[in-house]
C-alpha cells in the first residue's frame, strides 16, 4: 500500500495544476513539481529494502470483476527500477519545462499532461493486473497524443500525433486481445497469479496468438521496426515531452511489458526468435538512419529506436541471458538520452533551429551546455568511465555467444558512436554557423526550422540556468553511475531481475572480448564521423519503410471508404430496391425451407353468392390498382385508386367486417380528397416533369422494378397462402373477446370493445400517432398570421415569430391574395349547408353509440372532418374559417389527446388499472352507456377531427392556416 501515493500524487497534481498555474510563475511550477517528483523518487528508493525482503509489494481494489478488471497494483524490483527512471527523469524534465515555455498560459496544460503521463506511466510499471496495465498503457498513448499535438496549430504536430496514436493505439488493440486471451487461458488477470501459471500458458493452444498479439502491442509502443516510424513523427512534441515520453519512459513501456511477461511467456522458440530478430533489425536500422538525419530531434529519435531495438533483442535472448544488460541499458539510455533531448531543446530555444547543418561552434556561447553535451554524448558513444560504456559492455557480453547478433550489435554501436560525435562536434564544435533569431519575443515552441533566412548572426538567446542544469544533472548522473556502478546501480538491477548481479566499469579479470569490441567500435565510429563529409553527400535511395506502408494503407482504406460511400447515391428508388431485394432473398430462403401444406378444402371453388361478390370486388380492386399504375395522370390515378379502395371496403363488408368497411370508405374518401389537394398544391410543371420520367425510365430499370415487385408479390402471396392455411382453430383469444365484450364492457360491437377497452392502449397510441402526424403537417406547412392564432387565455401575438423566419425561405411561391371562386353556387352551398349538420349528427351518433353499431370516435372525427372539408370545398377556405370560428385544429388535437389521456388516467385515481373500463352506474339515457369510454371516444373524435382538418387546411392553405 505504501507505494500507492506514488501513482496517485501525479494524478492529483495534474488536476490541481491547471487552476494553480494561473497564479504561479512557470519556473516555480517547474521547481515545485520537480521537487515533488524528487520526493517520489526518494520514496521509491525507500521502498527498495522492503521489496528486497518481500520480493514484491501489492495492493488491490475490486473494480470490475465481471471483466476481470481489478485495480490492482504490484511493485517488485522491475517496477521500481522503471519507476525510478520515471520519477528521476521526470524531476529533471519538470524543472527544465518550467523555463521552456514563454507563453505562460500553456504551461499549466503542459504540466497537467506531463503529470498525467507520469501517473499513467507509473501505473503501467506498477500494475498488478493485465487490464490495469492495459488501461495505464492506453492512457500513456492518449497523453502522448495530446503532447505531440500540443501545438495544435501546427499541421505536422497534428499529423504526427495522430500517426503515433494510430500505431500505438492499434498495437494497443492487439495487446488487449492478447492480454484477454492470456487472462482467459490462465483463468486470471492478476500478474502475481500469472507468474505461477507460466507453464499453463506456454503449453496452451492459444500461446502463439497470445504471444504474437502481445508482441505486436509492445513493438508498436516501443517503436520496433517496421512500426518505428511514428517516433520521429512524434518529435513535434515540445522537447521536454520528447525527452520524457519519447525517449526515457513511454517508449520503454513495451520493453517493460516484455520484461514483465518474459518469465510468463518467454523462453519459447517463438519468443526467442521474434524478439532478437526484430530487435536487432530495429537496432541496426535505427542507428543507420540516425546518421543521416538533419533534425537534431530526428537524430535522437532514431538512436532511441536503435537502442529500443537492442533492449527488445536482449529480452528475447534464451534463458533470460540478456535481462541484466537490458536493465542496465534502460538506465543508461534514460540518463544520456534524456540529457541529450533537453540539450537539443536548449539549443533550439537559444538558436531557433534544430537543423544540424545550420549549427556549429556554439561552445563559445554556451560552454556549460557544451560540457554537458560532451558528457552525455560520450556516454551514448560508450566511452569509459561513463554509464553508457557499462551498458555497451553488458550488451556485448550478452550477445557474445551469438556471432550474427554480435556483428549487428557491434555495427550498430559503431554507427551510434559516429552519431554521438556528430551531435557533440557539429553543434558545439567547429566554426560558428548558428543562425540566430532576430526577434526577441518569438514563440519558442514554434520553430520554423528551415528555410527562413531572416536570422541575426550576432545574438544568442540567453539560456536560463536550469535549462543547462537539468540536462547537466542527468549527464552528471551518467558519470556518477558509471564510476560508482557497483555501489549505485548493482543493487537496483539485482533487485529488478531478482538475482544478484555484478556490474563493473572495467572488466575485473582483464581485458575481455567485449571490451575489445567496444573500443573497436569507438575507433570505427570515430573514423566514420571523420569521413562524414563524404557519406553525407551520398544520395542514398530511401528504403520503403513502415511509414510508406502506413500511408499506403490509410489511403487504401480511404479509397475503400470512398467506394462504399458511392453506394449512398441519394436516390431513394435504389435504396428501396436494395432493401426489397434483400428481403425477397431472405424470405424466399425461409419459405423454401418451409413445407406448405395445401389442404384440398382451400382449393375448392366458389361456394356462395358472397364468394362471387368477393371475387368481383377483388378483381375490381386489382384492376383499379393496376389502372392507378398505368394511368399517367395523377388525377386519374387517384380516382382509380379511390375505386380500388372502395372495392376493398366492399370486401371488408362481405367478410363481414362492417366497422372496418366503414373506416375504409371514410379513409378512402379522405385520401382521395387529400391527394387532389396535393395535386392542386404542387405545380403542374413539376408533376409533368415527374410523370414524363415515369415511363421515360430505361427499359432495364423498368424490368428491374417489375422483377422486384413480382418476386416480392409472389413471396408475399405464398406467405399469405401459408398464413391463411394455418389459421388456428379454435382461437381462444378471439373467442374470449366475443364472449366478454357484452358482459365486461357492455358493448354489442365486439370490435368496438376491443378498440376502446381490451386493446385500448393501441387506440390511445394510434390516435396519438394520427394527431402527431397532423401536427407535423401543420408545423411543416403553416405560417402564422398574427391575430389569428388560437389562444386559450388572451395573449397578444408577439411580433417575432420563429416559424415566420423559418418559413421565409420556403415562401417563394406567393399565394393569390383574393380568390373568387365560381364554384360556390347556391346549389352546392345549399347542399353543404345541409350536409355538415347531418354529418355532425352522424358523427355524434357514432360517438354515443359506438358500442352498438359500426363507427366510433374515430369515424366520428373523420366524418366531422369531411363535413368541414365539404365546406372548404364549397365556401372556400376564408369563408369557412369565418363561419366556423371554433375550428382551431391544433388545440382540438391537444384537447382531444388530453381527454383521451384523462380517460386513461382517471381509473388510476379510483384505484383501478390504467385505461380500465370504468362505467358510471345508475345513468342511462337513450341506451347511451356512460362510461369513462365516452371520454375516450370524445377525445378520439376531437383528435381525429382536429387532425383531419389540420391536414386538409395546412396542405391546401399553408400560408394562412394558424400554426397551432
Amino acid at each position, binding site marked *: 500500500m505504501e507505494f500507492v501515493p506514488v501513482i496517485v500524487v501525479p494524478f492529483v497534481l495534474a488536476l490541481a495544476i491547471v487552476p494553480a498555474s494561473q497564479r504561479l510563475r512557470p519556473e516555480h511550477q517547474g521547481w515545485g513539481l520537480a521537487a515533488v517528483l524528487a520526493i517520489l523518487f526518494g520514496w521509491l528508493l525507500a521502498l527498495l529494502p522492503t521489496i528486497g525482503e518481500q520480493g514484491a509489494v501489492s495492493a488491490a481494489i475490486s473494480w470490475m470483476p465481471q471483466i476481470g478488471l481489478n485495480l490492482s497494483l504490484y511493485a517488485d524490483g522491475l517496477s521500481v527500477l522503471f519507476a525510478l527512471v520515471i520519477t528521476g527523469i521526470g524531476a529533471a524534465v519538470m524543472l527544465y519545462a518550467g523555463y521552456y515555455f514563454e507563453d505562460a498560459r500553456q504551461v499549466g496544460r503542459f504540466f497537467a499532461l506531463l503529470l498525467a503521463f507520469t501517473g499513467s506511466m507509473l501505473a503501467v510499471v506498477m500494475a498488478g493486473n493485465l487490464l490495469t496495465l492495459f488501461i495505464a498503457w492506453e492512457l500513456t498513448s492518449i497523453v502522448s497524443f495530446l503532447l505531440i499535438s500540443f501545438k495544435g496549430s501546427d499541421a505536422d504536430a497534428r499529423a504526427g500525433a495522430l500517426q503515433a496514436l494510430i500505431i500505438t493505439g492499434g498495437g494497443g488493440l492487439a495487446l488487449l486481445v492478447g492480454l484477454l486471451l492470456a487472462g482467459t487461458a490462465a483463468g486470471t488477470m492478476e500478474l502475481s497469479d500469472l507468474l505461477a501459471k507460466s507453464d499453463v500458458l506456454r503449453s496452451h493452444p492459444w500461446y502463439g496468438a497470445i504471444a504474437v498479439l502481445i508482441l505486436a502491442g509492445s513493438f508498436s509502443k516501443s517503436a520496433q521496426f517496421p512500426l518505428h516510424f511514428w517516433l520521429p513523427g512524434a518529435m513535434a512534441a515540445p522537447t521536454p515531452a520528447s525527452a520524457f515520453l519519447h525517449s526515457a519512459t513511454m517508449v520503454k513501456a513495451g520493453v517493460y511489458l516484455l520484461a514483465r511477461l518474459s518469465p510468463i511467456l518467454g523462453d519459447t522458440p517463438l519468443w526467442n526468435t521474434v524478439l532478437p530478430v526484430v530487435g536487432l533489425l530495429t537496432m541496426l536500422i535505427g542507428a543507420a538512419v540516425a546518421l543521416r538525419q538533419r533534425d537534431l530531434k530526428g537524430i535522437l529519435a532514431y538512436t532511441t529506436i536503435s537502442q529500443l531495438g537492442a533492449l527488445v533483442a536482449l529480452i528475447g535472448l534464451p534463458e533470460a541471458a540478456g535481462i541484466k544488460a537490458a536493465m542496465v541499458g534502460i538506465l543508461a539510455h534514460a540518463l544520456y538520452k534524456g540529457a541529450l533531448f533537453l540539450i537539443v531543446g536548449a539549443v533550439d530555444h537559444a538558436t531557433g533551429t534544430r537543423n544540424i547543418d545550420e549549427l556549429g561552434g556554439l561552445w563559445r556561447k554556451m560552454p556549460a551546455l557544451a560540457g554537458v553535451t560532451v558528457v552525455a554524448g560520450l556516454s551514448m558513444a560508450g566511452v569509459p568511465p561513463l554509464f553508457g560504456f557499462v551498458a555497451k559492455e553488458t550488451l556485448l557480453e550478452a550477445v557474445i555467444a551469438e556471432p550474427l547478433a554480435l556483428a549487428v550489435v557491434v555495427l550498430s554501436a559503431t554507427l551510434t558512436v559516429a552519431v554521438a560525435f556528430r551531435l557533440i562536434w557539429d553543434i558545439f564544435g567547429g566554426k560558428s554557423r548558428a543562425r540566430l533569431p532576430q526577434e526577441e519575443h518569438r514563440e519558442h515552441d514554434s520553430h520554423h526550422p528551415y528555410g527562413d533566412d531572416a536570422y541575426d548572426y550576432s545574438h544568442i538567446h540567453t539560456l536560463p540556468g536550469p535549462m543547462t542544469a537539468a540536462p547537466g544533472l542527468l549527464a552528471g548522473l551518467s558519470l556518477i553511475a558509471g564510476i560508482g556502478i557497483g555501489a549505485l546501480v548493482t543493487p537496483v538491477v539485482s533487485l529488478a531481475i531478482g538475482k544478484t548481479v555484478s556490474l563493473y566499469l572495467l572488466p575485473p579479470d582483464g581485458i575481455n572480448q567485449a571490451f575489445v569490441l567496444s573500443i573497436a567500435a569507438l575507433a570505427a565510429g570515430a573514423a566514420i564521423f571523420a569521413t562524414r563529409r563524404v557519406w553525407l553527400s551520398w544520395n542514398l535511395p530511401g528504403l520503403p519503410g513502415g511509414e510508406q506502408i502506413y500511408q499506403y494503407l490509410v489511403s487504401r482504406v480511404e479509397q475503400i471508404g470512398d467506394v462504399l460511400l458511392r453506394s449512398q447515391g*441519394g436516390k431513394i428508388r435504389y435504396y428501396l430496391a436494395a432493401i*426489397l431485394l434483400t428481403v425477397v432473398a431472405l424470405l424466399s430462403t425461409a419459405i423454401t425451407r418451409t413445407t406448405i401444406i395445401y389442404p384440398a378444402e382451400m382449393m375448392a371453388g366458389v361456394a356462395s353468392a358472397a364468394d362471387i361478390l368477393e371475387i368481383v370486388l377483388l378483381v375490381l380492386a386489382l384492376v383499379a390498382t393496376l389502372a392507378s399504375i398505368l394511368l399517367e395522370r395523377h388525377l386519374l390515378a387517384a380516382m382509380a385508386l379511390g375505386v380500388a379502395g372502395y372495392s376493398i371496403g366492399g370486401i371488408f363488408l362481405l367478410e363481414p367486417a362492417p366497422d372496418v368497411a366503414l373506416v375504409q370508405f371514410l379513409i378512402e374518401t379522405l385520401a382521395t380528397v387529400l391527394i387532389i389537394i396535393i395535386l392542386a398544391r404542387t405545380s403542374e410543371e413539376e408533376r409533368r416533369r415527374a410523370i414524363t*420520367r415515369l415511363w421515360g425510365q430505361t427499359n432495364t430499370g423498368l424490368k428491374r422494378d417489375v422483377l422486384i*415487385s413480382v418476386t416480392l408479390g409472389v413471396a408475399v402471396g405464398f406467405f399469405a*397462402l401459408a398464413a391463411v392455411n394455418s389459421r388456428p382453430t379454435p382461437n381462444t383469444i378471439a373467442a374470449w373477446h366475443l364472449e366478454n365484450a357484452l358482459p365486461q364492457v357492455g358493448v354489442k360491437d365486439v370490435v368496438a370493445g376491443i378498440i376502446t377497452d381490451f386493446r385500448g392502449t393501441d387506440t390511445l397510441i394510434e390516435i396519438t400517432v394520427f394527431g402527431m402526424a397532423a401536427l407535423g403537417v401543420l408545423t411543416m406547412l403553416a405560417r402564422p398570421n398574427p391575430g389569428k392564432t388560437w389562444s386559450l387565455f388572451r395573449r397578444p401575438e408577439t411580433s417575432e415569430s420563429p416559424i415566420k423566419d423559418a418559413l421565409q425561405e420556403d415562401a417563394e411561391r406567393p399565394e393569390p391574395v383574393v380568390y373568387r371562386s365560381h364554384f360556390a353556387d347556391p346549389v352546392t352551398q345549399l347542399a353543404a349547408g345541409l350536409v355538415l349538420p347531418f354529418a355532425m349528427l352522424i358523427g355524434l351518433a357514432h360517438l354515443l353509440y359506438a358500442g352498438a353499431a359500426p363507427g366510433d370516435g374515430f369515424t366520428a372525427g373523420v366524418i366531422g372532418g369531411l363535413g368541414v372539408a365539404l365546406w372548404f370545398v364549397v365556401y372556400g377556405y376564408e369563408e369557412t374559417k369565418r363561419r366556423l370560428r371554433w375550428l382551431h385544429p391544433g388545440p382540438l388535437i391537444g384537447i382531444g389527446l388530453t381527454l383521451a389521456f384523462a380517460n386513461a388516467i382517471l381509473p388510476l385515481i379510483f384505484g383501478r388499472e390504467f385505461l380500465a373500463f370504468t362505467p358510471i352506474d345508475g345513468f342511462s339515457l337513450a341506451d347511451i352507456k356512460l362510461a369513462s369510454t365516452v371520454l375516450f371516444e370524445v377525445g378520439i373524435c376531437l383528435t381525429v377531427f382536429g387532425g383531419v382538418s389540420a391536414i386538409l387546411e395546412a396542405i391546401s392553405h399553408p400560408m394562412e392556416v394558424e400554426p397551432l
Partner: protein
Amino acid sequence: MNILFALATGIMFAMGVFQLLRRDLIKAGMGFYILFTAINLLFLAVGAYNGSVPAYVDASSRPAGQPSDPLVQALILTAIVISFGSYALLLGLIAVSSRRFKTVDSDELDQLKG
C-alpha cells in the same frame, strides 16, 4: 376463397412495390398506400374464423352463424389509422418538397449523399 385472397394480396403487394419504385413521389406515395391496403387484406385473410355474420353480440336479435374474427378487425382499424397518418404526413412532406425544392421527382431529391 383463401387462395384468391392470398393471390390478391400478392398481386396487390407486387403492384404496390412497383408503384413505390417510381421516381414520381406522388405515384410512389400511392404505392405506399397500396401496400398498406394489401397488408389489410392479408390481415383480413388471417382472421381466426371465416365468419358469416358481423362480430356483434346481441342476444336478442343476433342472427345465427359464425361471427367474423373481431380481433383482426381491430388490428386492421389500428393499422389503417396509422398508415393513413403516415400517408397524410407523406403527402405533407411532398407538398413541402414541392415548395422548397420545386420538385416531386425523387431522383432530384439527392442532395444528401456520400
